[in-house]
């Protein structure tokens, strides 16, 4: 009775297998959490190589969004890609807290623009190569160096009025 589910599982397993065969350093870092959900962990140096391969050769050619988070010592960046709107592959990488910077992926996904600006505003991570544009989502007169999604940022601690411009 479970046949359709089993067949789908093999597709996810195949993706895991292909990734691990192509990139030996990915061994044991690709996890199939459930049907249609795969998570992979990458070191920043290997990111470009794997990301380009996954998008161009493995048909993960749609970007759902990018999630950034403060993980204590580092920032975690997650790229959520999907294949034919079915299987979601989350590629996780980290970036140091000293002068945090990532490279833009807008040459591959033009729609990454707004997600990258969101990370810039809310976490204070620089995105190299992102063309000039208007900030998102904080107001233009938001104080510099205040990034609300950092864990040490508290709403009540920053008392400046930004509404009465």
């Amino acid at each position, binding site marked *: 009775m479970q046949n359709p589910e089993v067949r789908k599982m093999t597709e996810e397993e195949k993706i895991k297998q292909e990734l691990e065969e192509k990139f030996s350093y990915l061994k044991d870092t690709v996890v199939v*959490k*459930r049907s*249609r*959900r795969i*998570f992979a962990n990458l070191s920043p140096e290997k990111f470009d190589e794997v990301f380009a391969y996954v998008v161009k050769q493995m048909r993960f*050619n*749609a*970007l*759902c*969004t990018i*999630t950034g*988070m403060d993980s204590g010592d580092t920032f975690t960046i*997650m790229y*959520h890609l999907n294949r*034919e*709107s*079915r299987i*979601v592959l*989350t590629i996780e990488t980290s970036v140091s807290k000293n002068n945090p910077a990532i490279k833009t992926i807008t040459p591959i*996904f*033009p*729609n990454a*623009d*707004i*997600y990258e600006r969101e990370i810039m505003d*809310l976490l204070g991570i620089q995105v190299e190569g992102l063309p000039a*544009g*208007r*900030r*998102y*989502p*904080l*107001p233009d007169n938001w104080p510099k160096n205040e990034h*609300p*999604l950092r*864990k040490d*940022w508290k*709403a*009540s601690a*920053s*008392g*400046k*009025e*930004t*509404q009465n411009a």
Partner: protein
Amino acid sequence: MHDPRDVQVPIGPQHPALKEPESFLISLHGEKITDATIKLGYNHRGIEKGCEERSYIRDLYLVERICGICSHSHSTCFVQAVEEIAGLEIPPRAKYIRTLISELERIHSHLLWLGVAGHEVGFDTLLMYTWRDREVVMDVLALISGNRVNYSMNTIGGVRRDITPKQKEEVLKATGILEERTKYYIWLAQNESTLLERLSKVGTLSRDDAERLGAVGPTARASGIAHDVRKDDPYAAYAELDFKVITANQCDVYGRTLVRLGELMESYSMVRQIMQKLPDGPISIKAPRKIPAGQAVSRYEAPRGEDFHYVRSNGTDKPDRVKVRAPTLANIQAVAKMLEGGYLADLPIVIAAIDPCFSCTDRLISLRQTDAQSKNTATWESLRLKGIEWYKSKGIDFSSLNKKLAESL
């Protein structure tokens, strides 16, 4: 040499053509739009940050308030992620009730959209008709949940309210009425020449552009992309329901209208199937207060397209990160493309055609203390006084007007 026909027009953040605050900078050559840049963020309320500071159950009510129209979408998308991390398998009856509310919400949202679209092209009769009809489904939603919006049906581990046989009857009756009305609107869309000519070839978005810019929902489906999370990545009870993914190849506002009308018909059929198949049994299971460490990606086909939530937990009763990507944020990037090459007069309907919801899009803001003694809350009276003072500081004083009004009564 500067061409006097080249001008830049700022539209918004406050503008009669816009239903919510967003701002567009439109470059024009005569009447034609040559470039459009969009600035968002005016509805930023800090909900993602807020989620990190609250328990899961409180977050459920907070994410429900990301958007009024697709409140059930966000709460279901979030609760699915939490349940996945906690390893909770909700009872079948709960799955069906979630799906029912989800389709009723789509019906009310698409009818609302049809009215707005009619209004934007000067066809206000259509607005009056569809919004009158929309009341039928709003009444049904109120009957089931007690609320017209923010239904609060979800809880971690299932749903909070059951469906009684009497409610079942009402839902089926409403579905019958609305189906007849929708058939008329489909006939109208196919035969009414003002609608046809006003919407065709307006706000075009090719299939390639829709894919490249990551459009979702009816916007993508009207450009021939047959993606629907309900089909592609089934959740709740969708795997057990029979329905078609409606697409159109017009790639314009007319196509988006046809897709939504077609989806309404599918929703009516789904509501009937749910009522027929509704399994017996409990509607929820007990959920732990603390959620074990883990992560989950949850997707949901909201009326406007794919809603995407990512939740990471750390073993406590509060999440480490909640990320929300509402469908409008995915679609808004295609809007600039749709506007380019079109006429300025088409702008309202082109923007309306993605069925934008900027509250969804700009989830985050921070509560700011305006004075020390009031802490983080402002009373209605203090807001009113603040408003009066603010206008006075700008040289506008309404107090004499108020006096006149009081005397005349």
